């Protein structure tokens, strides 16, 4: 039943629904819960195929997360889906005590992450969920880059391990980065493009934009940028990150999320401890989202290929200074 890889732009949440059906067919213990957003999150596909194993909890996310705890404690493997704002925000304490603290095999399919949710605006645009879930003990955080990787992430979530997992998915159709459904997420960091001058490290919807940025840097500036896709933000695989930044000496991170607590902090933490290099960030500052189409929102906050490229140019300008800061010492006196 090899699933078919997509070639045209399609939302990562579509992969969630499709992969969930495959998991349901293979494993009787898989159950799905949703909170009146089953069409949006695509868990409806599972619900139609396995109605007896699907629980629509209505607009009551706290109840849903604690129900998942009870189901998992009794041998089921629950997949809970709703918007990221409710999964990580409204039901934080329920996820924390019932799922993470209990170390239960529950998968949270958090759709509509980031500002690309679009028109609904700030109330629904979750831009701090990665930070919340990274901070939560025992919780794994996975953010796939495209449909094909998202499909693998959901399938692997059943077999890879038994720890709690938060999967961030997106609303808009997103260009394909992986031509095939990858065989594995591996360690969660993939080198998509090699280069020696600067490292662009991206996650989720920013990955394809980082690839575009690298292409424009090569075309317009003759800069060879390396591009890394970080799909597992926690636990982050430090090896490939360190290998790349030690080669290039400077990096730019890109995420559709607050730069506090998200990819930027995860990468900076790794580098600061093991190979300090300057790391610049593209992401959301100290502000909430706004209404607009998905793409307009991304542009409004500079979450674009040109936004990444511009930040890379700044970083490259500063690289000779910040990468080799003048040392305090005898030569200065």
């Amino acid at each position: 039943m090899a699933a078919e890889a997509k070639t045209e732009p399609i939302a990562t949440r579509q992969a969630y629904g499709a992969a969930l059906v495959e998991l349901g067919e293979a494993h009787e213990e898989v159950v799905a819960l949703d909170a009146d957003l089953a069409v949006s999150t695509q868990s409806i596909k599972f619900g139609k195929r396995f109605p007896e194993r699907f629980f629509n909890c209505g607009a009551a996310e706290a109840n849903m997360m604690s129900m998942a705890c009870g189901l998992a404690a009794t041998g089921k493997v629950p997949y809970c889906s709703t918007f990221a704002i409710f999964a990580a925000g409204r039901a934080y304490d329920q996820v924390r005590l019932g799922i993470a603290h209990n170390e239960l095999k529950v998968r949270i399919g958090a759709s509509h992450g980031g500002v690309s949710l679009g028109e609904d605006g700030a109330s629904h645009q979750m831009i701090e969920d990665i930070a919340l879930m990274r901070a939560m003990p025992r919780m794994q955080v996975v953010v796939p880059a495209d449909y094909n990787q998202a499909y693998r992430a959901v399938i692997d979530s059943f077999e890879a391990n038994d720890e709690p997992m938060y999967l961030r998915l997106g609303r808009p159709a997103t260009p394909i980065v992986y031509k095939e459904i990858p065989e594995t997420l591996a360690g969660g960091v993939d080198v998509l493009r090699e280069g020696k001058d600067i490292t662009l490290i991206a996650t989720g919807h920013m990955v394809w934009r980082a690839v575009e940025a690298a292409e424009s840097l090569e075309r317009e500036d003759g800069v060879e940028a390396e591009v890394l896709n970080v799909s597992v933000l926690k636990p982050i695989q430090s090896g490939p990150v360190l290998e790349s930044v030690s080669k290039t000496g400077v990096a730019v991170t890109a995420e559709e999320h607050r730069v506090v607590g998200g990819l930027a902090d995860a990468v900076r933490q790794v580098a600061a401890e093991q190979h300090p290099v300057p790391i610049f960030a593209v992401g959301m500052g100290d502000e909430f989202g706004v209404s607009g189409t998905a793409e307009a929102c991304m542009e409004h906050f500079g979450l674009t290929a040109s936004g990444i490229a511009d930040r890379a140019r700044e970083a490259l300008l500063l690289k000779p200074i910040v990468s080799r800061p003048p040392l305090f010492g005898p030569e200065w006196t």
Partner: protein
Amino acid sequence: MTANLAPVSHLRPVPDPQPPSRKGAGEPARPSVAELERWATLLRIDCVRMLAVAKSGHLDSSLSAADIVAALYYRVLRHDPAAPEWPDRDRFVLCKGHAAPIQYAALAHLGYFPLEDLMGLRQIGAQLQGHPDMNRTSGVEVSTGSLGQGLSMCLGICLALRLDGLAETAQVFGVLSDGDCQEGQTWEAATAAAHFGITNLTAVVDYNHLQTDGTTEEVMDTGDVRAKFEAFGWDAVEIHGHDMAAVVEALERSRALDRPAAIVCQTTKGKGVSAMEGRFGFHGKPPSPELAAEALAELEARLERQTGSLGAGAREAGADPADALETGADDPDSDPPE
């Protein structure tokens, strides 16, 4: 550790000289009301001991639930301490996780873990956490302690049991507090339990009318909780929560219903220790050494009385549970409803 215990060795739990007789794995025990009342006293005594040693915890909240917990663990629940993961077992969830000592006392006396472990409550390195922890303590189904989440967890367990074809066999009992009834999530769960057609869920509300900041009526009056559950589509009854015969009857009745069942138990916080009963200001505070000594003297005297009359009663009456439920009403320690 042993050195630390020396000054408080008189607080060390002692094995029950009259433990429940068990017919076999999972077979329900059918003790009389008088026996259950005696065990409730035994569990209360250990709560006082544990809290006096730990110098931390919620004593009065544990005492108010003692009769409910004794009725469940010693009579109503189908469980097997030798096989805590037995799939067909009834589930006990202490939604009011802060009353953990009363559950720990029952689990220890029934053999889920050594009695000695009760002495480690709330101490670094010990298995007994401040609130129940499923990954540390045998017999704890899910971790609780954040009010409002327990009933939803019970509901999840019910749905899993239904998928496993065990809905007719295994009943899920959640013990809630009045604080749980103030949390909105409890009512999300109440709505969903009715919606999903759950038939094996019993919510037992230990309604003791006192919370951290005052009486429930002062802090947040929840109104008629029984009527609320009924309005949510539940079978709902209200009983005197220290009338052991009534508690047992309501719990056993709840098994056979075609709807989720709520039993609102009117209880007294600190029940069994006169100095604490119904008095504000003890929530979350351990007893002083003086209060602990006073409480133990009162409870141990009651235990002796109950043990004595039980010996006499057992010679007269047979072990028929129906008769036993009748005779329990005459027990001088079973106060009539207020």
